[in-house]
């Protein structure tokens, strides 16, 4: 099962993801409507993408009082909101630890990231790969390899097989 993964250290803060999300889902350009947001901490030069992580024990699903309003998509694993059954109480929004659930006051329902049905638009517009849509195992393998390559470099440097350097 693939998941959305956010890498703040790669994020440039360009917010193309926000615009792609609102445009391809809602037909408008509106960061407020976007299901993914980038918080730009300008003073420190840091940008952090924040969005739904499709939690396994999703608090939003647990807290939702309307029996048919929330379910998990079996294909993508996304936590879904059935807007016809949503009563717009915003309990999910209040309990979400990531502030990742939106509320549409005009239409009277909540809405959230549905992984665009398994082909997330935000990922397509992120050119530094700060947002990835990957299998857990691929992510872990990449991290493992990175750590191993670092260790290998140190070991080879210690054995004077390569010149020390910045890499």
């Amino acid at each position: 099962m693939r998941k959305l993964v956010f890498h703040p250290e790669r994020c440039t803060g360009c917010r193309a993801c926000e615009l792609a999300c609102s445009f391809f889902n809602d037909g408008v350009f509106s960061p407020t409507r976007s299901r993914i947001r980038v918080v730009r901490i300008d003073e420190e030069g840091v940008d952090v993408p924040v969005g739904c992580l499709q939690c396994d024990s999703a608090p939003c699903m647990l807290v939702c009082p309307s029996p048919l309003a929330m379910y998990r998509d079996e294909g993508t694993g996304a936590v879904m909101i059935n807007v016809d059954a949503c009563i717009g109480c915003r309990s999910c929004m209040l309990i979400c630890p990531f502030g990742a659930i939106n509320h549409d006051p005009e239409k009277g329902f909540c809405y959230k990231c549905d992984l665009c049905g398994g082909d997330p638009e935000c990922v397509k517009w992120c050119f530094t790969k700060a947002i990835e849509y990957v299998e857990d195992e691929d992510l872990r393998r990449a991290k493992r390899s990175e750590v191993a390559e670092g260790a290998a470099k140190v070991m080879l440097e210690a054995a004077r097989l390569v010149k020390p350097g910045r890499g």
Partner: protein
Amino acid sequence: MPKLGGYAGQLLHVDLTNGLVKKLPLSKEACELFIGGRGRDAKTLFDQVPPETDPLSPSNVLCLSTGPITGLLGPTTGRVNVAAKSPLTGIYGNSNAGAHWGAELKYAGYDGIIVTGKASKPVYLYIEDDLVELRDASHLWGKGTYEATRILQRDHRGYDTRVAAIGPAAENGVLYGSLIFDYWDAAGRAGMGTVMASKNLKAIAVTGTGSLSVADPKRYAEVVRDAWQAVLEDPGFQTQEHAALGTLVVLGLGNAQGWLPTRNFRETVFELADEVSGEAFRDRFSTRPAPIPAGRACLSCPNRCKRFGRVTSGKYAGTKGSIEFEGAAAFGPKCGVGDLAAVFHAYMLSNDYGMDCISCGNTIALFMELHEEGILSHEDMDGLDLHFGSADAMVEAVHRIAKRQGKVGELGGLGEELAAKRIGRGAENYVSTVKGMGTIGTDPRVAKGFGFGFAVASRGSDHLRAHPVFEMIRYPPGVAEELFGAKEAGELGKYEGKVRLVFFHENMAAVTDSMGTCRFMHASFYAEYPIPEVLAKYVKPRGPVHSIKYHEWLSAATGLNFTYEALMKAGQRIVSLERALNVRFGVRREHDTLPKRFLKQPVPTGPFKGEVFSEEMLNKMLDEYYDLRGWERETGLPYEESLIELGLADVADDLKRRGLAATRIKGEEASPRKGRR
């Protein structure tokens, strides 16, 4: 009027004298003629600012404008334009910045703000969607731009509030005060911040939660995908130099190519360039070192040219911020300073004080040279030991200028040209200004396209009217010949083809500044139609050719129908409108020139040793340029007929009434008044 796509649909008129805010609808005709941003602002100034207006009086008008593309998805949609009559130059002034402020203004529901009058006490403008209020700013007045921004974010919607603020330098009357957007992005040139300060307006804080829609979403998605792909495939973008080092990459390049202004333009090669280069910044201060592929970006930009860094040790420990080439060039090579921490510190200080880093660095460099030449004595500088390379004195001078402290501060706040006039004793021979504006970090004796651009630019010696980077990068000569009529158009040190090079770039720049997109996409990278298509004839492409088709982009967004030709004509219209505005402010042919240093004094060292910008060539180029523009050769006044042809009949009428329009009709001699400046 049916609502146009892309635009928010209304402007804010803020009358500070009476504390009144009005919402004005956009007119479709104005959108068709001037697009938005820079084009709309020029028209507002033409209509509302009489030529005799004192730039620092309540009757000057300050415009902040976005374009129809600002805030949408696409390569580089974060730009905002600021315009007013400039207190530094006395002519048309404007400046452009990136970041996310402009888009936020549109999400709040406004395409632009027109500020008139003067508040009786310091205020700031707070905008949150429909709520638009002037609020007391007595707690912010006197504070630096960083602190003011921090306070306004804290007091409103945190990181979702975007702030444009001025600093103490502007409040103290430094003539090149800037507006700082979101901490690090400056609309620095031409003293727009000083105009804002003269109106007692400290900041504009915006939070917007609305939506923008486009006329044809399906076509829009196609056009933007094509545009984005064109950027990714551009040969310049593919080097990833901007992505790796930011705009500071240019410092090393300029030094290697021999056009890096050094010691107030005495030389063009700086022996300490490696100490203040992009690589040095990356290795010493970057908070995002390689291999992490991230600088910071303005809205929806794949280029991420903003380089964030922090000094962690030494006497400038704690200095942090976003560095760009121009500021680094001004405080580094131009001042002969090779201490990167000091350069970075001076640069960030000038932003915090809210003054243009280019004009500030240039002015200090001028003082250094005048001091070394004996024109300014030790006493004239209040004992400050300003000479080339003295980092400490440079940093101290930044403080004194911002505070207008002593003689350094008093003179320094006037900028190069006015300070030199005040000093006299031949000081004028050492300035780099055209029409009162100091020259940027590129030597016009070497880069002739840039140089010619400086001579004719509507806001004085500045690169961003044209930005003909084409002459610095290596495209096949056939491309240059096909586009600009001479293969030398792509070579440094050559005059051939440079007029058409500048003409093309100026038109394109006027268009994109008005749309709300960034210079780098069409004049640094060359992703715009028809350049990738022309390049494909000489370098076999790997797949289908993509390009940014600005005309289609604008059409899909707005619903207005722009052909390529119509869009290029809009560019010409905007440049001629700015000319008309400048003509009213007294600009004539004699002002379209370069300072003596570049015309008479040969480059002393480096690969272009011996080069000057030939006055004879400059005159020939002006003739050719005026012919292309439809301006009179003798005077530089626009022809009435060409203004009418561009759809500027009302502008032509106005000039005619003032006796400032040239005419091609025989027997009816134009009676151009001589320039006032």
